[in-house]
């Protein structure tokens, strides 16, 4: 038992370590920060494209926004400060996804609520269907048990598979 606990503890440490590595990976490097934040922002010219993916001819906004972002990242502004300054300047639609504050939070919560409810519902359905009794058979006929059917299943497998 203690051996099992030890393995579980080790596994949880490994999982935490992996999460930390994924969380910290790439953070801090200005180029990757520019790339990461630039993909969280939209170009505001009306093209409906991510800032760093907007390249249509004669876009009046994306170049200026990129320069602004590069300057903020070079200054060492935090991610949230950069995003706040963009929101103040261009409005909330400049963020490519809803924030995790106030009503916007529901955008993120609802898919997971649906996931949990959906899985719960399917599990309930599966349990209910599994607990249903066998359909009644005509008098004198006894349903075959799994043990009786297994040889036939094996025979079918041999004749139809490898």
């Amino acid at each position, binding site marked *: 038992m203690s051996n099992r606990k030890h393995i579980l503890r080790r596994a949880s440490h490994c999982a935490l370590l992996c999460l930390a590595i994924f969380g910290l*990976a790439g953070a801090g490097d200005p180029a990757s920060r520019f790339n990461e934040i630039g993909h969280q922002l939209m170009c505001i010219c009306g093209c409906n494209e991510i800032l760093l*993916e907007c*390249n*249509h001819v004669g876009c009046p906004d994306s170049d200026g926004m990129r320069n602004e972002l590069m300057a903020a990242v070079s200054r060492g502004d935090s991610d949230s400060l950069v995003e706040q300054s963009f929101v103040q300047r261009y409005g*909330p639609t400049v963020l490519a996804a809803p924030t995790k504050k106030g009503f916007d939070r529901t955008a*993120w919560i609802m898919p997971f609520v649906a*996931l949990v409810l959906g899985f719960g519902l399917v599990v309930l359905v599966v349990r209910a269907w599994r607990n*249903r009794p066998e359909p009644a058979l005509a008098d004198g006929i006894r349903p075959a048990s799994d043990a009786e059917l297994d040889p036939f299943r094996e025979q079918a*497998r041999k004749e139809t598979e*490898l």
Partner: protein
Amino acid sequence: MATIGSYALLLALALSGYSFLFGFLALMFPGEGSERVGETARRAGVALFGAVLLAAVALVTAAFQNDFTIAYIFHHSNRALPAPYKFAVLWSGQEGSLLFWSLLLAAYGFVLRLRYKTDPRLFAYASVILAAVQLFFLALVCFAANPFGLIEGPPRADGSGLNALLQFPEMVIHPPMLYLGYVGFAIPFAFALGALIMKYPGEKWIHITRRWTMVTWGFLTCGIFLGSHWAYYVLGWGGYWGWDPVENASLMPWLVGTAFLHSVMMQEKRGMLKVWNMWLVFATFWLAILGTFLTRSGIINSVHAFAQSSIGTWFAFFLAISFAVFVLVFALNHKHLRSEHRLESLASRESSFLFNNLLFLLLTLDVLWGTWFPKISEWVQGNKVTVGGPFYNRVAIPVAMLLLLLTAVGPLLAWRKTSFESLKRNFMWPTIGALAAAVFVMITPSRWGSIFGLRPWTDISLLYSLMTVFLSALVTLTVASEFYRGGRVIREKTGQSMFASMVQLTHRNTRRYGGYVVHFGVALVMIGFCGAALNQDKEMEMGYGDRMSIGSYELVCRSYTQDDNPNQASEWAILDVYQNGQKIDTMTPVRIFYKAGQQASTKPDIRSTLKEDLYLVYEGQSEKGRPIIKAHVNPLVMWIWIGAWMMVLGTGLGLVPNAPAPVAVRATRLVETATPVATGD
């Protein structure tokens, strides 16, 4: 032409009204003469196709005749427009595309009404329901969005021309495919509602509906991927999917339709999920109409959307009415759909279909929620927010991964119950093979480029990509093992080659093995998607002899030039492409200025290989008159197009009738001493 077209539309409206009203009366009041009345309604439905076709031909003819007295032709065509795009004018704008909808609906109805002998009563119900849908679309083109409206003021010498982004060969096929998909979902809906109204006994309607749904699903799949291809090759932003509301609108009915194609098997094999399937068919149709509403009402901002107009109200009413009618009929007749559900094991095909349906529905809800959230936010807090790629990537990718896992696992589970031994036997080698593929991709050096050297610990998107590689390989190997096992049994029995055995195997159960080919296509598409995590891009002003390095390529600007014709003026850059010091290609990205519409557009030049695409965009000219080139290296994009073709091929395969099962005749040796019955002389 305007007069012919307008009268043809009015005639079609009258015919659809007759087909609906008298078809309905014949079904509601059966008795003496009702069959003859019903037959006239069916024939009116057949004839209305001719009337709508005449209207469509009139509009296309007007485009070819440069009849700019018609406002629609003036706004969407011009004299110098190449002939294929003049043909495509039919679906280039709001009014024309609604006429095209009506035409396709009438064409589907035409086929349905000609095949009525399959089951006259069920087809009569379906015909009436279809006539009601047709009535709505024809009323729309007659009264709210008439494509034959005349232009006010003096006659115009030339038109405004077609939107620059639409002047691309795929423009001629992408919208028809998409519309065939959207419109086609009206047919399964008509059959389902008809079956519900008449309390249709048995599962025959499901067999009929399934084939129609497969055809429609195939068209929609084709339309969606052609749209992606079009975006990739025309918009010049280096992407094939942008989670735009209009793209989402096409994805939602596709997802629910896919769920239906799976769950319908439960009803056919086990008589389960009858109510669920009925709702899925309805939801698919309803979401297709909702997509059209989104595109045309202007309620949600999109780069693809048609101009804002009043027809959104028409669609809102139609959506509400169709929902109310379905709910009412369902409430009255749902007891007819009662079925006995019993599940013997969690490790069974049935439970895998349940989870499959759940995941498809969740994905649909995620997309629907993300599409509507900006509007909901505006209603609730008074300001709009953007719901773009980062949101969908976070909520949809995990669900898509689970679906991919089920795609691998589901087909190998048996109906009712799968033993542990069977699971081990079926999954061991595919799992080992998939793990080997994932480890190989992970440990190979990054300098190999493309998907190689995927280090999942450096970025979460690379972790997703690696998982996708593993799951796609698992799907591919399970599909391959299914073909191999079945083929081997036939080979042992017949002595044919393995390939011939697999062909025979597929022909004996085209739906099952066609489905496997679709799954294989899905795996290829997913591998293509995971390449997006490794995209690179670079932008540079390039004069004569300037060099740019990106990925394993070096680009050298050889020259830049200009061209001019009556329809367009263009600027070209001519770039030599080197790899490992060797010249491998010359590429010519171009920027085009369309004169009639006064619009500019880019046409990227793309060098596609299985490993990656080198994608060059001519972004514009610098102040010095030099071209500004944006280069992208997009790994594995070609896999998406190959996968899409596989999906369409698999769907086509699933529609081929099964070969009859061979009669088993045991070969016996002739008795050598027997005397012949006759010698032949």
